[in-house]
């Protein structure tokens, strides 16, 4: 019974999501709707606290299908923190549907949590699909065409994943992840293994939106609601990266089968993301490309295929989840382009600070969460002798930083429009006030992630050890 208590956070998240979906049918009082985001964010916070408390217990449930280890603890805590903060920070007056808008991040978080605790290929795949489906729904509310586009590319990714999983299952002779890892110790890096791994990584790269496979996620995120964009760029990508980490952990004995692919994808994503971020001016597009660049850093850490690299990548994943999920949410509507942010530092200092923190963290600017994560990965790359990848990553980071500074310039240096100035004195709606408080929480979380990085990085390293890496 005690072991099953580790499921409480998942239960809270999924029950809240289901209740929210039901409430869309039932309706609710006006005052309840006003405070609903705060209530849901509070519930996610409770789930996070319970995860940190109860999740420390190691447990294996459902015949090995669900594994609660340090990796799961870290990944789930990161996902819950990102989801809760995104709900708190989103400007709900800019969202299309309150109940679905609240339920989908929870379902995406649930999917990522399932993937983090997955003990076999089926659960791993199912978790990823739940998270991806939540993204499709939220995008489809505002733009059905983009939802369909995401669904189709997601379907292709799923096909690649299923084929890949099937081949790896055939090679290992088991669907259980820990047994597959043991079986892979004696496997040879043959072409029949390398091809399905390539398919798997391709499918996961599409899901994670890593360049050059970002063709679906980035354009889709531009047309979605703020939280929808956060879901696609953040939580769904995080779920895909969680699956990638678990897959890499199985294959560490045969690094030749995946490391070159990952290194290539990482290099393209890091430089491509930074360069593309520099090339666009629209804030949400820039944020999306910055997220692509940082996802590339995570992939670079995984390509090292040893504990330091995976630990660093996991540490960075936490920072990525926070900034990539909350960034679009705090940015709000993207319709106004760069001009809509002009002078926000004066008009809405808390939101401006939240936007600045998200941009800078994704760009890897010191001393924020992304910098610490990228540095941990960089240290692992240096230790592993991957200096070419490190050089490419640093170049990408500089491009990203220049791009982020461009947005900061608009936020803090450009003068606000006159109508914006006039609006400053008026009281804000309750939702906007709540999202302003959420922005403060986001700033604190991004700033504190590195400053108090010791326990977080330690847990990430324990997570890597839990996956059998030394």
């Amino acid at each position: 019974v005690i072991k099953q208590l580790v499921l409480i956070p998942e239960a809270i998240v999924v029950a809240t999501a289901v209740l929210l979906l039901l409430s869309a049918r039932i309706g609710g009082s006006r005052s309840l709707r006003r405070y609903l985001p705060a209530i849901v964010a509070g519930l996610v916070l409770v789930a996070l606290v319970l995860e940190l408390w109860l999740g420390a217990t190691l447990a294996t449930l459902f015949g090995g299908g669900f594994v609660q280890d340090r990796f799961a603890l870290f990944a789930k805590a990161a996902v819950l923190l990102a989801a809760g903060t995104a709900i708190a920070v989103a400007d709900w007056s800019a969202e299309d549907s309150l109940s679905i808008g609240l339920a989908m991040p929870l379902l995406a978080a649930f999917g990522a949590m399932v993937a983090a605790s997955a003990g076999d290929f089926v659960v791993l795949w199912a978790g990823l699909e739940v998270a991806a489906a939540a993204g499709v729904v939220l995008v489809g509310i505002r733009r059905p065409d983009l939802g369909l586009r995401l669904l189709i590319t997601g379907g292709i990714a799923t096909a690649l994943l299923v084929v890949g999983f099937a081949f790896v299952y055939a090679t290992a002779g088991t669907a259980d992840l820990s047994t597959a890892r043991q079986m892979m110790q004696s496997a040879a890096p043959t072409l029949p293994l390398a091809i399905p791994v390539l398919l798997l990584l391709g499918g996961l790269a599409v899901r994670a939106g890593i360049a050059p496979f970002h063709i679906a996620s980035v354009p889709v995120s531009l047309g979605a609601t703020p939280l929808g964009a956060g879901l696609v760029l953040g939580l769904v990508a995080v779920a895909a990266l969680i699956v990638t980490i678990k897959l890499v952990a199985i294959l560490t004995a045969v690094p030749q089968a995946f490391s070159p692919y990952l290194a290539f994808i990482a290099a393209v994503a890091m430089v491509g993301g930074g360069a593309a971020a520099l090339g666009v001016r629209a804030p949400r597009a820039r944020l999306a490309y910055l997220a692509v660049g940082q996802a590339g850093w995570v992939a670079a850490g995984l390509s090292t295929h040893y504990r330091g690299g995976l630990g660093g990548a996991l540490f960075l994943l936490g920072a990525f989840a926070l900034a990539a999920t909350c960034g679009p949410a705090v940015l709000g509507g993207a319709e106004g382009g760069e001009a809509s942010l002009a002078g926000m530092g004066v008009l809405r200092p808390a939101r401006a600070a939240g936007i600045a923190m998200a941009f800078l963290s994704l760009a890897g600017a010191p001393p924020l969460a992304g910098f610490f994560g990228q540095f941990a990965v960089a240290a692992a790359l240096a230790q592993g002798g991957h200096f070419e990848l490190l050089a490419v990553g640093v170049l990408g980071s500089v491009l990203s930083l220049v791009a982020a500074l461009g947005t900061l310039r608009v936020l803090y240096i450009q003068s606000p429009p006159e109508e914006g100035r006039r609006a400053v004195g008026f009281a804000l709606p309750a939702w906007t006030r709540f999202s302003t408080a959420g922005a403060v929480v986001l700033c604190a979380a991004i700033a504190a992630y590195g400053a108090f990085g010791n326990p977080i990085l330690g847990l990430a390293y324990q997570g890597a050890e839990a996956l059998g890496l030394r």
Partner: protein
Amino acid sequence: VIAANIAAAIHAASPTPAPVTVGGSGIFTSSLLLSILVWTPVIVAGLIAVLPNPRGRYDALMKQIAFFTNVGLLFVLWVAYNQFENFLTTVQFEEKVSWLPSIGVVYHLGVDGAGMLMLILSGLVGLASVLASFGVRERVRSYFCLLLLSEACVNGAVVAHDMFVLLLFWGASTIPLALLVFGWGGPRREAAAWRLVAYWGVGTIALLIATMALYAATGSGSFDMDVLLKTTLSPRMQLAVGAAVIVAAATRLPLFPFHGWARDLFSEAPVGVSVIIAGSATRLGAYVLLRVLVGAEPIAAQLLSPLVAVLSAVTIAYAGLVVLRSTDLRHAAANLALVPGGVTLLGLAALSPLAIGGSLLSIFSGGLAAALIVGVCATIADRAQSRNLRVLRGLAPRMPNLTWLMLLAVFGLLGVPLMASFPAEAMTFLGSFKNQPIAAFAVAAGLALVAASLVVLVHRMLFGLPNPDAPGVSDSSLGETWFLGLLAGGLLWVGLFPGGPKLPGTDQPIFDPGLVNTMAAGLTDIADPYAVGK
């Protein structure tokens, strides 16, 4: 509670400063001294950021908060300076707390003589910068927040004793400074700010590469300087690290051909920002070169010394030639600000204990001189309503204060006796003529060229025939006189009392133990591999 626990952990883990023997001892015994110097500006910046300021009603208060923060920091620094154990080779005021043990990052702060010199420079320049910024009228809150953050970054880079911490502050300093130029600069501010970001970004990459190469080569899994900089590396690895550090230093200091950002920046940035960049942020380049290359990689330092010498000579010659042809006062000042860096580098190329000491002192004097020349030229351009040297003529009778300050800046730049730069340049040249004779002659010739161009500039601008068609001219305001006077005063004080003022007939320092004495602490460690006979 968390903050209290961290403070307690730092206190428990940090060695108490050694007993002191000079005046001022025992006043300040906190082992958090360096953290106070680094984090107080950050905290105050945060407070300013959240302070309500409806329609700029409390702009003046924000300026005062920034000013008194700097005064307070300077006081703490003065106490630390007096408590500093001169001639002790170890790092002092050390703070050491494990930060990210999984990758070997330690929150390790500490200063030796060189660090203390840099901190004093940063303190003086920081105060001057705030005074120079009192004229800012737009977005005062943001301006002073960013200025305080810049100061914190410089202080953090100086006291860092872990390469990660150094990189953190080194890289972070670019962001507030670039935003300050973006927001409050002149008409070409965008180009100036982007250039700063690009060049300093390259420098940060170079330093990161050096750090990672050291980390990988030592195989210690630690970024602590005590480990990284005390491990003997192969000559090849030392060369790679050394080359990267030279690039990092050259983009900061700046040195030819990495000086592309300097002209635009010093001519477009607001005066206060120019002062902090020229005075302290750029000196970090020489400081890192001294600490990482000269202090830790002696083989690479010797192999690369001809390159360093060439960079030094070319930078000074280039600056002299450009100033001679310049028709824009602020452009001329920007190029003159390159000169002290060139002199500093000559000492680091010569690699003799005397020259290294001279270099160290010239980091301090050069920082003050560069800040002064940039500040005074910007003020003259403001007050004369023109920066065109064809228009600016015969200003001395109408701006006597600025004329005196300009002359002091010129003297400081050229190393005239009674200025702090005199002992610095004397030590540098005396220590360099043996090891790098050609470079020393070239630098001396370059300085002669700079002197000639300065004579032409000063004669034409200040003492020539007044231009009747020039716009109206006024002398410096009280605030401008104070900030320029502070920088000039620093140069004069150290020039007059390099060993500190003493009670007549005794060796007891009164309130200043002497910058040259403080500088000596830790210098033995750095210069020892280059002593004669080694």
